Structures are given as structure tokens and as C-alpha cells.
């Protein structure tokens, strides 16, 4: 049953190594729960998505904030965006360094400036003006990200291939009790990228879009491909033409594969609270909270549901048996 409020969160699309699956899954579930608690208490959709993405940025499992992939030079440059569906206001930062929560800085760009995007040095200067503490770059770097960086230093490495899976951009979409819609996306970008490379994430229409009249999208996947097809805006355009959230998401992803051979995933929500988490990569860690239920999945058609109050962690998935154990399907998909 579609109902409000609702929040859907993703932790990246690709080929997540088995060893990291349970951490990714736990991470997105925690973020969805936290965002939902915020919404239930009457918080805005914007508050909820920023809360959820902040948790994911702090979680070293994901390619955002702490745990971000490294640039060619071994540094961390992060992109983030928020968008408010009521006013179409937005804030973004690109190639920003040495702050713990780019999504919060993006929100400040929206709230405190007349601009939509600040980059690099300018973004850092703004952070200082806002009293946001600078953090040591080392605090954002993990063993795992160093290991992945080293593996992709050789000239014949294929970072896109390698990236497409191991580590994910994070994002969230939400509709609050007032019917306001918001989204947020955050990332460390592409593995071993050139310094100054900006991907889809901070580009409105590509890395995010929210409109109270249509819905919201937060994508993950191959950034350059997402940009070329302006994925977020494209999916909402299909919805404007009458497609369901699921049809629109699938059409957008199919187009991105056909036209520019890019893989990825999206979380999408509409004004009524209908939502989907769809992807054409092997996996995408996702979770949604709605009507007292927590929904989550990782592979293909997986869709697990449990009561949101349930404290016990789900059993870790066995290596072979990936036939989803569906509980009563309360998902809003109309297919």
C-alpha cells in the first residue's frame, strides 16, 4: 500500500563482493530506519534524506564521505547534492576535500547562498565560512579504498569495470507527511579519477531530481553514462508521460544501457508514496521504510520485508541459495 511518509535509500549499484554484502545491507537498513524515524516525528523530507545520507557518509563501507574511493593521486574529492521538490531549490558541492559530510555542505549551499553549486576551493572556503570543521584527509581513507586504488594504478587497469561494483555512491528519496518530496546523493566519485573530475552526482537532473508534482530520483552507477542520458530527469519525464515508477525506472536504465552502455541503479518515489529500487547491475544495496515496514534487497528481484521495530538482525545470506525468501509482499509495485 502506498502511504506517506516513505523513504528509500541506496548504497550503490554494481558487483559488491560477497564479503561486504552484509555490511552494505546493514548500512542501508540503518539509514532507512533513521530517515523514517525523522519523518514519523514530522520531520521534512529534506531532513530525512540528509539524515540518511549522513549516516551512509559516516559509514566506511560506502563510497561517500568516509570510505570514498581515491583519485589517481590518492586523494579524496567528493560530490554531493540535495534537491527540494517543493521549490525546485537545490544545493551541490563538487570535488570538495577534507570535510566529513558533503551532503550537509550541499544543503548549506541551498539554504545559505543564491547559488546551486560550489566547487573545489570555493566549496572549501564556504565550508570554513559556515564553521564546518576541516578534517584530516586520512580520516576519510580506508584500507579498502587504498587497496582498490593500488589495484587500479597500472595503465592497463580498467577502473570503470573495477568500479562498477565494488563501491557505491549513496542516496535517498523521501516523501514526508506534508507531501513534500526531496532527494540527496553523495559520492567519492569514480575510482582513480583525474583530479577535478566531476561526475553525475552534483549535476542537477543527472545525479538527482525532485519535484513535488512528479517525484524524486537518486541514481548510482557509471557517472559519465548517467550524465549523458540525464538519468534522473529522464525517469521523471517518463512518469510525467504516465508511466509507473517501475516502468519509468526500467525504461531509463534500459535507455542508458542501449544508448551508452552504462550500468547502474536508481531509487524512485512518486507523490503518492509509490516507490521502486531498480538496477541493471548485479546488485544494488537498498532499503525502504513505509507503513511501519522495512523493505530491503541486494540482488535482482529480491524483496525482503520485516517489521521496522524488529531488533534482531536478519540471517546472513548463504553463498549459494539466493532464491529470495519473500515474506508477505506489501510492496507498492503494481506489476
Amino acid at each position, binding site marked *: 500500500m502506498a502511504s506517506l511518509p516513505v523513504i528509500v535509500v541506496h548504497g550503490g549499484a554494481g558487483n559488491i563482493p560477497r564479503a561486504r554484502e552484509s555490511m552494505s545491507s546493514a548500512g542501508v537498513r540503518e539509514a532507512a530506519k533513521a530517515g523514517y524515524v525523522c519523518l514519523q516525528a514530522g520531520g521534512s523530507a529534506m531532513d530525512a534524506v540528509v539524515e540518511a545520507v549522513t549516516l551512509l557518509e559516516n559509514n566506511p563501507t560506502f563510497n561517500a564521505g568516509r570510505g570514498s574511493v581515491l583519485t589517481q593521486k590518492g586523494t579524496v574529492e567528493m560530490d554531493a547534492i540535495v534537491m527540494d521538490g517543493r*521549490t*525546485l*531549490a*537545490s544545493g*551541490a558541492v*563538487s*570535488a570538495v576535500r577534507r570535510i566529513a559530510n558533503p551532503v550537509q555542505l550541499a544543503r548549506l549551499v541551498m539554504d545559505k*547562498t*543564491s*547559488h*546551486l*553549486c*560550489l*566547487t*573545489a*576551493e*570555493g*566549496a572549501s*572556503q*564556504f565550508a570554513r565560512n559556515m564553521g564546518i570543521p576541516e578534517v584530516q584527509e586520512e580520516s576519510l581513507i580506508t584500507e579498502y579504498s587504498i587497496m582498490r586504488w593500488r589495484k587500479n594504478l597500472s595503465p592497463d587497469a580498467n577502473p*570503470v569495470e573495477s568500479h562498477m561494483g565494488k563501491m557505491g555512491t549513496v542516496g535517498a528519496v523521501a516523501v514526508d507527511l506534508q507531501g513534500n518530496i526531496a532527494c540527496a546523493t553523495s559520492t567519492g566519485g*569514480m575510482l582513480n*579519477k*583525474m*583530479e*577535478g*573530475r*566531476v*561526475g553525475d552526482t*552534483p*549535476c*542537477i*537532473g*543527472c545525479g538527482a*531530481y525532485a519535484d513535488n508534482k512528479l517525484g524524486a530520483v537518486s541514481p548510482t552507477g557509471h*557517472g*559519465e553514462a548517467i*550524465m*549523458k*542520458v*540525464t538519468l534522473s*530527469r*529522464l525517469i521523471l*519525464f517518463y512518469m510525467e508521460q504516465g508511466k509507473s515508477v517501475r516502468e519509468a525506472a526500467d525504461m531509463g536504465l534500459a535507455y542508458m544501457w542501449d*544508448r*551508452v552502455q552504462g550500468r547502474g541503479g536508481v531509487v524512485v518515489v512518486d507523490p503518492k508514496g509509490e516507490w521502486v529500487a531498480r538496477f541493471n547491475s548485479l546488485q544494488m544495496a537498498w532499503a525502504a521504510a513505509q507503513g511501519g515496514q522495512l523493505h530491503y534487497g541486494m540482488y535482482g528481484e529480491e524483496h525482503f520485508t520485516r517489521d521496522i521495530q524488529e531488533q534482531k538482525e536478519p540471517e546472513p545470506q548463504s553463498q549459494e541459495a539466493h532464491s529470495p525468501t519473500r515474506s508477505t509482499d506489501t510492496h507498492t509495485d503494481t506489476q
Partner: protein
Amino acid sequence: MEPTIVVHGGAWAVPDSLAEASVAGVKAAARDGFAILKIGGSALDAVELAERALEDDLAAFDAGCGAVLNTDGEVELDGKTLAAGAVSSVRNITHPVTLARAVMEKTDHIMLTDRGASQFAESIGITTVPTDALMTESERREWEHYKKYAVGVKEGHDTVGAVALDHRGNLACVTSTGGIRNKMVGRVGDTSIIVSGGYDDDQSGAVSCTGHGESIMKVTLARLILFNMELGKLARDAVDVSLAYMGERVQGGGGAIAIAPSGDWAARFTTQRMVWATAKGESLFYGLDPQDMFEEKLSK
């Protein structure tokens, strides 16, 4: 396929003192770009050349040499492959559009910013020029004036852009700007954001936008115009409907040029003026004020 190129020099209240030079500038750029198309050159080359001509025009335009300290530039999207290149927040480069094209052709990425963009420029032999060469006298005086009196940001909607259709039916677009005067350091406007300042797709059309950058971004104007063209609207109607939406939804004004795969084209705006010129067939069309549609022979 009949080659066509449309060029704009920004949608804003162009003062009379600059009007003549601005119009001359876009006409020259359109002629230059069209010359490439006539000999069978690509849409991509045509728009880049037109952009460079505009960037060179010191007196009238903001981008390139006249740029107010911080420069954004987005290059042509290639409508066949959807390849794109963009740079933001680069300083002291005479032709940001050429740098953006290099991002598209020489890297796996679409957009580079700030120091990373400058480093890349150096690595491919694009030299930076001292700030003095990039600021005209009036720019420098103006900047100093604003610095002293900390006046609020003045909207200088003087972005430049071009869209073209070549004889093969390929489309390309480019947009370049120095951005709003005295904007915050590191502010990235609509120009270098794919989908807002410009977009094109051989299957749908090509668009370059100008006007209030933040409004353009909020409604992803270029993509919106193309969605409307994909729904079957004529270029003119697609642009008008989209500009009207931007006005209603986010109270932003601006303009856009567009070409459809059929060659149908438009140059429309909701600001007081927009300098534009189109070269097609034997004719050069151009205008400044809302109802303008002047025509002269290209061979002139």
C-alpha cells in the same frame, strides 16, 4: 540534410551602447561556423569555431577574454554518441570551450573543475594567460568598484552559445560563460552542467540556453526543451513553453536557441533582449529585440 547553425550572445537587457557590437559579433560567429558546415565539416567543429569567435570578441561578451575572473565553459555535446566535455571554475584560459572539447576527446570523463581542469590544460599544452589579458579595462574598473562597495551580485546574463546541424544530420551544441559578476568563488552555474545549459541528441535536437543560471538549472531547461521537441512540438513552441514554465515555476528569465533533426530552428527569449544569429541556406537571420527577424544574404 541542410546544414544550419544558430548562435546566441546572451539573454539580457543588452544596453544600446553594446547592441551594435553584440549583433555584429553573433553574425560573424554564425558566418564562421557556417563556412565549416558548407565545406562538409562537422557540427562539432562548427560550434567550436563559432564559440571561439565569440570568446574572442572582447568588447561585447563576457566569456573568454572579457571574462570576469572566474570562467565556466561547457562544450559541445556530440549528438551521435552523447559524448560531452565540460569545465567549470577555470581561470585565465582564453578559450574554455577548446579545453572542454579536450576533456571530451582526451579523457574518460565529462567534467573537470578548478585546479584539476587547469592541470589538465597544462598537460595538453593549453597555456594560461595572465589575468590582465583576460579582463578588459571596463571589467577591471567594474570589479574594483564592486569590491569596494560590496554591492550585491549583478545579473550579467552574458553567456554565449551555439547549436548546429551538419550535412550528415549530426547535431552539436556548446555553451560558454564567465558567469555572474562577482559571484562566489567556485560558483558553478548552469553552463557547465550538462542538461541545463546545453544538451543535444541526434534523435531529438540541440539546445543552448542563457539567462538566470540558477533558474535554468532548477528546471534543467535544455533537457526540458528537448523533451518538448521529442513530444512533437516545433522548436519555437518547445522553447516558448519551457521558458514560460521556468518563469512560472521559479520566476526565472532567459532564452534559448534550438535546432531539430529536421532543421527546424528557433531563437526565443523572455528577457528584454537576446542577441542571436542563424545561418542556413543562402540567408543570415538575426535579431536583438523580441520581434526581430532580420535577414540578409550570406554571400554578402
